[in-house]
């Protein structure tokens, strides 16, 4: 199996603070890999630096065989690397359906000339996209809310929207930054199932930052543990449970019990 994403000796520093301090790991193509670790381990910074929101101090990131660490964010996304955010960031003043329509790349109506003088061609294209978007919304249970402004959605619905929007972008790989944060247990179940379906259905690779180890256990085949900006360990969750370093890193408390159980 080949890697879709390779993180190699990545360093990120903000001022004097080393948020990521020489981290190396890989994500296999077609898998869901979890990225876990205690708070302040640098997980979100890692997602940011893979997606391009945070620039590296040194190191390299290879996505789909291409070195991407010097590409601007939008170029990385054009290559098929799409992220979601820890806090939902929907386009509030646009309808749910529009939220999906806007993210598809390569629409002919994105050029000014086509937009203004060839509206027919662009309209035909949009109609097809509307059908596609509605299918996705239907899968995620948002179909009936498609003409609602995204800002009017509930917290859980916004989570679903965030994910369906990412799916609409047809990514090769999804970077999910705590998609289950602040979500009810029932919805966690649903979201988890969606992620598994996407992975099985289209072979979409995922890197999932998650605190909830039950979720990790259920949907992730591999787990990377980060602590103090470094990769601490890697393996299946079962393997990691017997790894003293990992248990130590969580330093007692609730998580200690959970991972040790």
């Amino acid at each position, binding site marked *: 199996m080949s890697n879709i994403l390779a993180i190699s000796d990545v360093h990120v520093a903000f001022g004097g603070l080393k948020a990521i301090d020489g981290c190396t790991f890989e994500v296999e193509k077609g898998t869901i890999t979890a990225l876990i670790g205690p708070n302040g381990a640098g997980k979100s910074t890692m997602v940011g630096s893979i997606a391009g929101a945070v620039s590296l101090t040194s190191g390299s990131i290879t996505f789909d065989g291409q070195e991407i660490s010097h590409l601007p964010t*939008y170029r*990385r996304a054009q290559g098929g690397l799409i992220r979601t*955010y820890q806090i939902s960031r929907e*386009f509030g003043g646009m309808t749910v359906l529009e939220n999906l329509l*806007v993210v598809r790349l390569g629409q002919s109506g*994105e050029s000014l000339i086509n937009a203004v003088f060839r509206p027919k061609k662009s309209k035909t294209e949009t109609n097809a996209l509307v059908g596609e978007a*509605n299918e996705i919304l239907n899968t995620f249970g948002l179909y*009936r*809310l498609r003409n609602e402004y995204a800002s009017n959605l*509930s917290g859980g619905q916004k989570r679903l929207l965030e994910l369906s929007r990412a799916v609409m972008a047809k990514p090769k790989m999804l970077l999910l930054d705590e998609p289950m944060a602040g979500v009810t247990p029932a919805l966690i179940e649903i979201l988890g199932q969606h992620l598994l379906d996407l992975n099985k259905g289209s072979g979409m690779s995922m890197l999932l930052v998650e605190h909830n180890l039950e979720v990790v256990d259920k949907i992730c085949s591999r787990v990377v543990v980060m602590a103090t900006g470094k990769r601490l360990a890697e393996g299946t969750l079962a393997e990691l449970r017997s790894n003293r370093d990992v248990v130590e890193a969580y330093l007692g408390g609730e998580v200690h019990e959970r991972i040790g159980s």
Partner: protein
Amino acid sequence: MSIFLGYVATILVTLFTYNIFTLGLNIQFGYAGILNFTVITFMAMGAYFYAVFVMPPANASNQVFYILGLHWPWPLASIAGIVASGILGYLIGLIALKRLRSDYLAIVTLATGTLLYGLSGDQNKLFDGWAGLFSVNQPFQSVANNHPNTFSWIFVVISGVVMLIVWWFANQLYSSPLGRSMRAIREDQDVVDAFGKNTFKVRMMAMVIGSTIVGIGGVLTIQYIGALSPAGWTTGETFVVWAALLVGGRGNNIGAMLGSLLVAVIFNEGTRYIPQVASSPNLVPDLRNIIIGSLVILSIWFRPQGVLPERKAKFFELPLKDKYAQTFGGVSANQELATEV
């Protein structure tokens, strides 16, 4: 009677040109969330550059100075004026649209406006300083000279047609995928970036298109009046356009036009004939500015979406069977479980 007809024509031309300004700002702010705090400078650029392209070389013996003086025919000079304001928009965009907070763009527009205002006033070699340009060649000059009312009504038609074209253009843009990208950037630029769109390019387009449109309004203004001096494009004028857009409804082109009717024509013209207070001749214009400023603030407080809010996008859809409509589980996932935690 003829005075009245002339007055009505002037009101209509004012309405149409302000419609154009507001539509231009709507593309920048209402679509793409770009804060242009010096709208009126683009109007002035359009007007001044039209003037110096259309007028004959400056005659130093009259103590009148300006650059160029190419004496081009008015249609070509119009294009020159419009292009000039587009270029100014492009330059400002180059400085401030790259990866910066919206504060910076607002600062750069305001700074550019202040700078150009001072420059065009103090440097009388550019556009004749504070005196400004006058006797600017108008389209259909002989009609303008001999039958001012006929000229006014010809101009009502011209500016009306131009306005309709701009309005049509703005609508086409709004409902296109490009317009959708602009609005998404207005909502959250980082996310649009993270979905693979070159947001710099899209914002630049909105900036340049908006500036160009305001420039068109500027060319029409000077063609109708035949003169422009810095007193005609103070910061207060920028607020009129902003107030019009916010009152009318940002993101809604009809709203933008309604706003310019309410603010630029009914309010501004309506207060023009309040008699001056002899002891303080500036009282009325000062009060008018205070009201315009308050209008901007109050409309954001009470009705930020404006009189005519942005319209919800509707699409042609094929029927789709709602997978969750029947099952109880799906409904609860939608409505009950997914509530805010």
